[in-house]
């Protein structure tokens, strides 16, 4: 497609009153020799749009630049189809609404924004999707418990083939060991049958689901649309090809031997929830020591959970599980005494009905700190401080004590087979002041052949990392979605829903990959990074820093990109010191030329220039909001959006300084434990890189404070003027960049 640029300058919404539109047009026509440039007072109106459409149809305009309002508005009006490159110059929100009207400096700002965009177009190529041949549309589900079986069935129902892998010899997971389950449906009052048989039957009867039992994963190689999974079964191995993976390996009970303080191990009659479930499944619940049918049972909640010494988190399911098990006892003998010692009863939502049911059956709930469990020749005594009675209390002659011992995700256990390589690696990296790699616990589940490690990176407690509020399924390994209690502590009803959602994400990833599009958050983006490998110095930064582990490495240390794993954030591009990584429509030279296109006045003009790199996810909308609220800020700044601060290549700072900019401000998302960065690690990595810039600046004889990074979230728009103006003032104090004019 020939590149023919058309510039359309809108003078509506007060733009025409504040700016000299003719002078602006000259930037396009004279400086940039743009062949088509039109002005209109209402481009988003029907006639205005027609003007542009006509140029596209008759004048073969292929690159459309609309200088007017922000790209956040009128996106639907200015939609000219995929064959036209559309760029918006935000004169309204970013210039006219934040600056003095009819002012020389305002005009200079507007002209610079037009230059930036035109410079961008010079370097911008239309990306072509990376489409893999024969994208595999099957989904592998790892784990055959409730979540895994649900995912498998739901994926199959949507018309896709499934490979279901279970390490035990039959499907079912915890359902197999359960007598009944907490109700999944209204009215949420009675335990329900596990439905295991029906579920297994449904899977076995579904020709779209291939089940492997007694099978583990030896190796997972490849990428979305083309995973090669080596399964280990018996002594042998076999291969399966799939397009996406659902990790549903669930959780295991917290190790009860660590609960000696609650009597575990002291008596066979002190059991875990899981053990109690097995007893219930056998028929009459009888105490293990002598087989006597139980008359008095004590449940101890938060046995391990909500305990800084054990599991700091709440295991979410145990309250409901204990209510269920208490009802077993009551069902067996309505006269039985059942005591539940708790911290808080967390029967959230409609499970409140379940709690009420247990109460009305006579189960007694005691808010207490348990101080001890003792065995008196088979009979047990729970001693506790009853917090609501304000006195010590004891339940004696108990036949059994059940410990609600919580859950630990299967991903939290380091397989001893691995040794301590991971820690060593992490220690080395830390010594290097390089970014500390994500904690990847070698739990021997997926065994990914990924350069960054064999499993999903975790955030805390071994649960896989994700933006768990807004985008809960988006792990840091594209095409691999965690579901059920491996993702976060949850009860069975949540696990069913969770597994269904993960099924959608797997299917979606496959369909997106098939079209060459990215998944969240740049959904549908077809651009992807090219690597000019002949210039690679094997520094490994790209392979180490990619937040999504998209890049593998050959034995010489060359990067082996996997475009279908890529989320298109550009972190690799930012990391590369040789600048060999670029997207067709986003590259180091492109941004470099954009910033170089800005006119930096001579020192004696006393017009400083501050460059702002702003993350397009949060900082750019915040800057728009500042405009919508007509908040005024310094006229010396020029803003360039970036995909993520992670894509910030330090050469741009160099470029900016050589060009004569007096300062550079970086606006990115919050990082750390409660990160908001949409690419999880991008802004953090930018910060680490930036820490190395000061040295360079010092070498150039520049104050390192001239480059500053700040966190801006979408609601910080009221702070925008303060952030910008204070930085400009600070720069002002340093005086002009001595490199100006060189």
């Amino acid at each position: 497609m020939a590149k023919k640029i058309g510039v359309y300058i809108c003078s509506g919404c007060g733009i025409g009153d504040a700016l000299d539109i003719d002078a602006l047009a000259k930037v396009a026509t004279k400086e940039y020799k743009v062949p088509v440039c039109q002005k209109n007072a209402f481009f988003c109106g029907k006639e205005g749009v027609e003007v542009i459409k006509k140029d596209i149809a008759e004048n073969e305009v292929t690159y459309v630049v609309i200088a007017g309002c922000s790209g956040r508005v009128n996106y639907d009006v200015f939609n000219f189809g995929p064959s036209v490159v559309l760029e918006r110059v935000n004169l309204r929100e970013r210039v006219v609404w934040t600056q003095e009207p009819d002012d020389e400096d305002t005009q200079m700002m507007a002209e610079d924004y037009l230059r930036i965009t035109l410079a961008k177009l010079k370097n911008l190529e239309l990306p072509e999707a990376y489409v893999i041949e024969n994208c595999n549309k099957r989904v592998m589900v790892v784990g055959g418990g409730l979540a895994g079986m649900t995912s498998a069935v739901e994926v199959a129902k949507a018309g896709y083939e499934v490979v279901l892998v279970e390490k035990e010899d039959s499907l079912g997971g915890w359902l197999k060991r359960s007598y009944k389950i907490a109700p999944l449906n209204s009215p949420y009052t009675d335990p329900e049958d596990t439905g295991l048989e029906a579920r297994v039957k449904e899977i076995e009867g579904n020709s779209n689901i291939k089940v492997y039992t007694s099978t583990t994963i030896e190796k997972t190689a490849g990428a979305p649309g083309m995973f090669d999974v080596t399964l280990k079964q018996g002594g042998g191995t076999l291969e399966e090809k799939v397009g996406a993976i659902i990790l549903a390996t669930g959780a295991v009970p917290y190790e009860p031997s660590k609960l000696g303080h609650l009597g575990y191990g002291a008596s066979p009659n002190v059991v875990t929830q899981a053990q109690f479930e097995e007893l219930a499944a056998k028929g009459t619940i009888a105490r293990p020591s002598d087989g006597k049918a139980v008359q008095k049972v004590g449940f101890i909640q938060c046995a391990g959970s909500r305990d800084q010494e054990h599991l700091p988190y709440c295991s979410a399911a145990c309250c409901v599980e204990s209510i269920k098990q208490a009802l077993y006892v009551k069902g067996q003998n309505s006269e039985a005494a059942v005591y539940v010692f708790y911290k808080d009863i967390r029967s959230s939502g409609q499970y409140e009905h379940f709690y009420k049911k247990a109460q009305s059956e006579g189960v007694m709930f005691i808010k207490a700190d348990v101080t001890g469990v003792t065995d008196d020749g088979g009979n047990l005594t729970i001693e506790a401080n009853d917090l609501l009675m304000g006195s010590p209390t004891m339940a004696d002659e108990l036949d059994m004590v059940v410990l609600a011992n919580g859950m630990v995700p299967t991903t939290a256990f380091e397989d001893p087979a691995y040794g301590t390589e991971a820690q060593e690696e992490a220690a080395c990296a830390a010594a290097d002041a390089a970014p500390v790699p994500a904690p990847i616990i070698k739990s021997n589940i997926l065994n990914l052949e990924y350069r960054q490690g064999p499993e999903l990176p975790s955030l805390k407690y071994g649960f896989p990392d994700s933006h768990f509020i807004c985008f809960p399924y988006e792990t840091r390994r594209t095409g691999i979605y965690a579901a059920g209690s491996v993702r976060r502590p949850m009860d069975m009803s949540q696990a069913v829903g969770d597994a269904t959602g993960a099924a959608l994400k797997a299917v979606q990833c496959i369909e997106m990959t098939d079209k060459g599009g990215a998944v969240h958050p740049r959904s549908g983006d077809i651009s992807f990074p090219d690597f000019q490998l002949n210039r690679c110095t094997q520094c490994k930064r790209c392979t180490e820093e990619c937040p999504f582990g998209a890049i593998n490495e050959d034995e010489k240390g060359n990067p082996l990109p996997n475009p279908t794993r890529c989320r298109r954030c550009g972190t690799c591009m930012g990391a590369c010191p040789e600048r060999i990584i670029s997207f067709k429509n986003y590259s180091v030279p492109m941004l470099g030329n954009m910033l170089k296109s800005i006119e930096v006045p001579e020192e004696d003009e006393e017009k400083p220039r501050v460059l702002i790199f702003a993350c397009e996810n949060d900082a750019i909308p915040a800057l728009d909001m500042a405009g919508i609220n007509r908040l005024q800020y310094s006229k010396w700044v020029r803003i360039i959006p970036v995909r993520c601060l992670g894509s910030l290549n330090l050469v741009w700072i160099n470029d900016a300084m050589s060009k004569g900019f007096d300062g550079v401000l970086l606006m990115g998302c919050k990082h750390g434990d409660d990160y908001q960065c949409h690419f999880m690690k991008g802004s953090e990595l930018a910060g680490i890189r930036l820490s190395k810039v000061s040295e360079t600046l010092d070498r150039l004889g520049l104050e390192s404070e001239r480059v500053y990074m700040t966190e801006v979230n979408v609601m910080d728009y009221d702070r925008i003027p303060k952030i910008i103006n204070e930085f400009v003032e600070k720069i002002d104090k340093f005086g002009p960049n001595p490199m100006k004019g060189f």
Partner: protein
Amino acid sequence: MTGFNVSSGPLKYDTEFAREIYSLENGHHIKKCMQCGMCEVSCATRKEMDYSPRKMFLLLRTGQREEFFKSNTMWMCSTCLMCKVRCPRGVPIVDVMHDLKCYAISKGYTERAQAAFYQSFWKEIWSRGKQFEGGLMARYYLKRGWKDIRKDAFRMKDMGLTMLKHGRMPLMPPKSVKGLKDVQKLVEVAKAQLQKGADR
């Protein structure tokens, strides 16, 4: 409200006693209490009670027989109904309190003034089909004994005189209602029905 202080070691649970309480007409409602404490705050006489209804229920569930009989909680209930209206678990607290009073009396715990009053009141109604203040007074003080007469009767004399003046306290007993026997029969039937309900 007082704290619960037990000098002789921890509280032990007595399921027998709890079961007995649950078997009262409204006793099973006690099981539903989730210990929120709304009842105490709603209670008009909360400052008089040694245990809030919430805590009383906890005592009953854990089977604290002695504490129950010692407590004044149910006796202080003035049946204002506020707790029953507000209880988030729908426990008819007033009705439970009534049952608890009856239960205590049936177990011979009649030494409380309120118990004497309830009993006297009922006797009057039973014997005449209506209330006679003089008779009620006589029955009540007969139960309470000389000490109470000395303490109360003189303290209340002004009120008595005022009532006399306004003809609100006839000196002579009124005639019994017509068909007193039938009224009594009706009550017996109702009682029997109640018993049957409780047994069921």
